[in-house]
């Protein structure tokens, strides 16, 4: 019998010199941190890799880790595509990311405190009043309210990319209900199951400590007078795209996962219904958006919230994480002021770069955007999940016209940025049965509590699976990789 010919895994890898490859230099040599990994993978063929990759994927099936993709007609249940070839970040690079992420979270928290109290940054002319007064996420009900522990953005998801210049840039600060952390942990589990022998050769920081740190942070913002707080996670329910994550986090923290109907408010205190009677709730990690948390205060048609919850919150009897009204700083138009916001409150220079951004609300910038759409990414300021993004160099002339009209109709709704060339990472592609370069970003998770902060040493490296695609969001068909942060 003739032995099957086994191809080494990177035998047909094409390294496009125009792209920033995180693993290989232009001369084809592997970068230092990856050398050991490639030596270890070197013994394997592409067929072995496929087998291992499938094994890892089945671990997701077994755990039921799925999400839903919305489009106009239907919703679909999908498995988040996973690539077994990990991304490695060395300790020096990680230190920059970590310090940068903490810096941004702290600055955003101070910004939120300010715009709901003295509004100094606006009076000093740093941030225009219009950005606040035209934001639907600015909650007047939060003016003058002191959130427990002084914290608004307990949980931040900062999206970072490595540009072809080798530097890290922040694309977005997600501080409403950023999701994805459960995938970080599941990716690690799947990778370790499939490739423990490889993983073991590196000194990598654990990611499973996220839940205990989250619980710590939540407990640190307990309402006044509470000794041992009772924390819960509130979810919109099993039809939410991140339901798996809500249930995972509740389980990992050892707290109850509840829906709105499981809670009730009496005399401005919040209780959970249990078979042994009501139990008071002190801290709520809420994965329900502001407008749905309390039908008596916000959207009356919401069945996801708890009637009376907001009054309990402003009376200081319960803590909500993240705080209501935090979304105003999640606006992509606010993002452009981040370097100024950091300077204003912390008197520091930003550790992580911002991508240059054009505001369509400013007439001269609008003009530039309308004339240069083919070389810009146009984004709506208030959408998440990669919805509504237009990448100029992928558009036909007719499509550009449509985008131009759309922007002219509602300039405040759009910002534009130069098309950033995200770094690429070798990713196994089913169709070609080989590794190919794919663009990646990194979502980091930063926690902010009362005199406590934590950055998960790891993150969600999201891969755009379609060749050349720059949008990595899972809702746009992206996949992910395990991300190793090395210990010193």
């Amino acid at each position, binding site marked *: 019998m003739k032995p099957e010919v086994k191809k080494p895994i990177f035998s047909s890898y094409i390294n496009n010199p125009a792209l920033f490859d995180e693993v290989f230099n232009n001369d084809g040599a592997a970068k230092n941190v990856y050398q050991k990994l490639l030596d270890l993978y070197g013994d394997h063929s592409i067929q072995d890799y496929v087998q291992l990759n499938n094994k890892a994927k089945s671990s997701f099936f077994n755990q039921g880790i799925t999400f839903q993709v919305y489009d106009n007609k239907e919703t679909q249940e999908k498995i988040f595509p996973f690539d077994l070839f990990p991304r490695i970040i060395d300790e020096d690079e990680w230190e920059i990311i970590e310090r940068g992420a903490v810096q941004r979270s702290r600055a955003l928290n101070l910004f939120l405190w300010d715009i709901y109290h003295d509004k100094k940054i606006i*009076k000093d002319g740093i941030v225009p*009043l219009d950005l606040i*007064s035209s934001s639907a996420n600015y*909650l007047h*009900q939060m003016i003058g309210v002191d959130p427990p522990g002084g914290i608004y953005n307990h949980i931040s998801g900062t999206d970072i990319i490595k540009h072809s210049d080798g530097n890290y840039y922040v694309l977005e600060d997600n501080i409403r209900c950023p999701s994805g952390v459960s995938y970080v942990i599941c990716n690690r589990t799947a990778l370790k199951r499939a490739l423990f022998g490889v993983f073991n050769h590196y000194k990598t920081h654990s990611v499973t400590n996220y839940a205990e740190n989250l619980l710590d942070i939540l407990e640190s913002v307990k309402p006044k007078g509470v000794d041992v707080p009772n924390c819960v996670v509130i979810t919109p329910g099993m039809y939410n795209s991140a339901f798996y994550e809500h249930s995972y986090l509740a389980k990992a923290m050892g707290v109850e996962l509840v829906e709105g109907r499981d809670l009730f408010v009496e*005399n401005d205190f919040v209780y959970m219904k249990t078979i042994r009677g009501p139990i008071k709730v002190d801290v709520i990690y809420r994965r329900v958006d502001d407008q749905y948390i309390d039908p008596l205060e916000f959207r009356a048609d919401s069945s996801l919230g708890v009637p009376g919850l907001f009054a309990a919150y402003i009376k200081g009897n319960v803590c909500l994480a993240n705080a209501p009204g935090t979304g105003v700083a999640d606006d992509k138009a606010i993002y452009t002021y981040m370097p100024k916001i950091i300077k204003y409150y912390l008197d520091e220079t930003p550790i992580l770069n911002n991508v240059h951004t054009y505001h369509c609300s400013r007439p001269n910038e609008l003009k530039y955007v309308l004339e240069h759409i083919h070389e810009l990414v146009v984004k709506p300021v208030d959408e998440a999940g990669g919805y509504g993004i237009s990448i100029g160099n992928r558009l036909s002339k007719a499509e550009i016209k449509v985008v131009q009209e759309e922007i002219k109709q509602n300039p405040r709704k759009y910002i534009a940025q130069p098309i950033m060339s995200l770094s690429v990472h070798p990713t196994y592609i089913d169709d070609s049965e080989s590794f190919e370069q794919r663009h990646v970003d990194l979502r980091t998770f930063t926690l902010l509590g009362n005199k406590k902060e934590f950055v998960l040493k790891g993150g969600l490296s999201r891969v755009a699976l379609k060749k050349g695609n720059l949008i990595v969001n899972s809702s746009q068909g992206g996949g992910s990789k395990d991300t190793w942060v090395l210990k010193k």
Partner: protein
Amino acid sequence: MSFEYSVTYSAENNYENPVENAYWQFLIIPENNDTQELISVEIKNSLEAKGGFSQNGFGFQTIRINTSERFQKINFSATFKLKKISFNPFGQIPIFDIPSNYELVKSLNFKVDHEPYLRETKYTALPAGSENLFVFDTSISIFENLQKLNKWIYLFIHFNTGVTHVNTLLEEIINNPEGVCQDFTHLFCALAKANNIPTRYVSGYLHQGNGYFGDSQMHAWAEAYIPQVGWIGFDPTNNLLVNDNHIKVAHGKDYNDCSPLKGVVYSQGANKTSHSVEVQAEQ
């Protein structure tokens, strides 16, 4: 001089199908302020459901009722006794430094401090082209302009019940100027704001002893922020400055922040709500 009022608010809710569980929030309690003092509150409901006091997001006291037994009909009533101090609305008006007042309202600090009441809202958004319906004459004081605006709205809108409803937008009012106190007030807020004056929507009760419009329902008027003075109440429905016949409950950006009754009812099918208000002076 002061005198006492007794205000009774009653509501009746009928549901087509049995309701398993319901929460209501009533924003109907007269607030305590410089000119009025709440003496007592008495609340009754036909189901003897649990009730209590809370507050809305803007700090105004609310009544909460929660039922847990099946029902199809609930009657609710509340009686408030309060002391009202009589006052002369013109008594507090100083000599205005007119140019500096207009400069102040255009300054950034002023706009930042009053942002909530300068912002356009759903019910106070002027349709395109009507921003200049009423333009202030900057040779006279803001206070005088607001009095003129008050009168202008009083004459512009014809008081008529049953034409508009709680969701009526200004476009409709401007095209067909008929409506009730809520519509008068929204238009007042919108046009004052268009002239840089922070203005808020007020809900409350009107003692109708003098033949004012206001019906046997809750009443609405506006409060505008005037430099050198503070918040002053204007009742465009009656072309009046707010006086001791006006009993304030709450304010907000528009009706949406002040709606007297909000409910979350776990039931299907139609429902019918009716409420009435009675204000009596007890001198």
